[in-house]
């Protein structure tokens, strides 16, 4: 299973991409662990995870159809 992860704001710059793809991430805890392993820069920046356009606050099961996004602190307005 391959999952697409959208990047926004400063994260686009840091990872130099609009999105990344990760394999074998069954839930959001595994995702975070693998992300920080693969991209150590992510351990230094504050961000939240949205699944299907909702911010998650606990571990959640992911599927290939999940819309996952990494969101740095908002600064609109």
């Amino acid at each position, binding site marked *: 299973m391959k999952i697409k992860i959208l990047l926004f*704001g400063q994260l686009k710059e840091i990872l130099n991409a609009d999105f990344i793809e990760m394999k074998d991430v069954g839930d959001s805890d595994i995702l975070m662990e693998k992300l920080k392993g693969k991209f150590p820069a992510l351990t230094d920046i504050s961000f939240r995870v949205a699944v299907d356009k909702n911010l998650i606050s606990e571990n959640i099961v992911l599927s290939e159809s999940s819309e996952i996004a990494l969101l740095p*602190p*908002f600064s*609109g*307005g």
Partner: protein
Amino acid sequence: MSDKKIKNIFHQGPISPSFIMESIQKHSTKTDIGAHNIFLGQIRADRKDGQEVTAINYTAYEDMALDKMVEIREEIFANYPLTCLHVHHSLGMIATGEICLFVFTSAAHRKEAIDACETLVERIKSELPIWGEEIFNNGSQTWKINK
């Protein structure tokens, strides 16, 4: 009063004073309105380390922002007896002195329009996935953080 259809709040480029004028003008036929409150965000020429901001480049997770805005709109209508509310946020490069946010509430009485507008502005700033990158006159850039 609330409607579930998703309105696009995003504008490419700055929000012009004439757009604001037209929006005000349209409300003259709604004669149950007694009070309007308008909040405008304008790009400030902040100074940091001797450099001055010349623009902010806004990007957003648009789909999520519009979903969230539907939710916020419904909650505002549930909590305040408004006649209508309108939100417009810029995307792209907005120069200092230009307007990047236009929030417009209308009600029969002033208190509702004023309170709803303030609540809306706070929620837009804290809950919508929008990012501003400050561009300085020496070409350097920093990611804005909302207070």
